[in-house]
């Protein structure tokens, strides 16, 4: 009798937990890749991937790219890295560090929080960064070139 009741509770708990996991809404909001409003380049997702993999460090106009990354602990960094680069934020940051110590790093990468990224991109014509869509809405002089959904 006791065994049956215990099993019943176990089933109910398992079903409840499963439903919670399945129906839990995603709290992550879309990320957007941004450039300055005066940037006239035609930028594809492959180009963004190359920029963030340190394969491309100049714009078509010949100007050096000023690149912004988010801190590794920012959820947005994980979404961006996993979706666009197909690697974790930790691996992506390790790759930058590895390029730095190998002395093969090409891009001038800066790691800043989202609001600072938005401000810098809004005042620097050659900058590129990614931030949450809700942060981008609050800033002028920036142009969204790609939206990334988790």
């Amino acid at each position, binding site marked *: 009798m006791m065994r049956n009741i215990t099993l019943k509770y176990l089933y109910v708990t398992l079903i409840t937990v499963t439903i919670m996991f399945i129906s839990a809404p995603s709290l992550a909001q879309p990320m957007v890749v941004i450039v300055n409003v005066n940037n006239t380049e035609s930028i594809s997702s*492959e*180009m963004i*991937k*190359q920029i963030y*993999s340190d*394969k*491309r*460090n*100049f714009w078509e106009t*010949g100007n*050096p790219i000023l690149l912004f990354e988010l*801190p*590794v*602990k920012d959820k947005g960094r994980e979404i961006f890295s996993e979706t666009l*680069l*197909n*690697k*974790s*934020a*930790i*691996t992506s*940051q*390790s*790759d930058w*560090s*590895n390029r*730095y*110590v*190998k*002395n*093969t790093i*090409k891009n001038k990468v*800066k*790691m*800043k*929080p989202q*609001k*600072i990224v938005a*401000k*810098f991109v809004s*005042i620097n014509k050659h900058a590129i960064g990614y931030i949450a869509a809700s942060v981008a809405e609050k800033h002028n002089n920036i142009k969204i070139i790609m939206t990334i959904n988790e």
Partner: protein
Amino acid sequence: MKVTRNVIYIVLALCLFTHLPATADEALNIKNNELDQRIIALEKLVESLILENKKPIFPINNSTSSTQLSNNKQQQLNQKKIAEHSVQLKKVNDISEQAEMAIYSYEDLSEEISNNINIAGYADVEYRGYNDPNKNEEFRIHHLSLFFTKQFDNNIKFFSEIEYEDAPKFEGASDGSGNSKVSSGKIFVEALNFDWNYSQHFNMRLGRFFTPAGIWSEDHYPPFVTTQERPLHIRKIFPQLVDGILVFGSTEIVQNHFFNYTTFLGNGESEANSSGKTDLNSSKGVGFKGDYSAPWLDDFILGFTLYQDNNDSSVNVNETINAKKFAYGYHVKLRQNDFTFQGEYSKGTLDFEKSLENYKTEGYYAQLVYKLDQWGLGYRYDVFNEKDITIEEITRNSLFVNYHVNEHFTIKGEYHHDSNKALLKNDYGFYVLSITGYLGK
């Protein structure tokens, strides 16, 4: 039995380590959070002031009380409100200017900091064990490397790496003789160079640098590679370092397909024990490395390396037995999802004055790594034949596991098993447990 017990202790210690919280970026995060808070406060203040100023200066009042006020009184009230409104507008302007100044100051400060000399580094500590009863298990304080870099302006950069290997100790005798009492370990300037970065297509480097040959020659730093032990042929066919000049760049041959080139001219291996000063002969080593990178898979790199030194003394730097050395190699690196494959093949030909002494040297490896979250699990098959004689051939099978605690800190375990073709040489196995830390940002 002793080995098993020690392995259990080490594994338990590693398990404990994996639960340590990552704290390396805390200071930076606090600083960033403070700045965020300040920006949020400023934004709130600006928003509230803007809202305040959106309110009508002269509130609409339908009552007849306004008609009861004298014209003078109404005028005074209006003037007062206009004055208040002007003060508030000035406040908004001031705060906007301050916010803008704060952003620019922050940018200036960032620029100033990045223009100062930057210090980074890495360190690793190992525990090694062997299946040879005559060899003791040991802790090894393997590396402490410090990197000093300075960006002089947009185009000129200085880079250096000073390595302290095996916790070096140098101590003079206290009898005033100037003799050395203790000398152990190694202090070595592994890199020291100046870069002139002109464009994506053309850049120059002058000084000491790792030989751009294949993958592992440059990509060898313990926090970022899978094993503490490098593949057998690395540094034995192409030289470890070059003192000289390097020209490098990258070009997009067709859209999204890149060709990266690196070509160099240096003292070659005839430099006296990497002294950084004396080239033992007038001949220079010359090399070229090309990489083709395509937008296939998550990463796709194919490449080759060529190296020639007409008066190579690496075979014996203390004697004048020089050889004409020519070496070439291929390399490949592919990544798709959680799998990364990497392989290199190299072959060197050494021609001496007496052709009977000529020999070839050959090595290759293939490595597959599977990444699961912060874990990396892999296998490497590795072969090296130093003098093109079957009995000299060594085959190494390596199994390894990595745990990346965070972007700076990795715990590694690896087991290597060497098989010799020579009948008199026994097969040999050893393991390495290590922790490696990157000390930069």
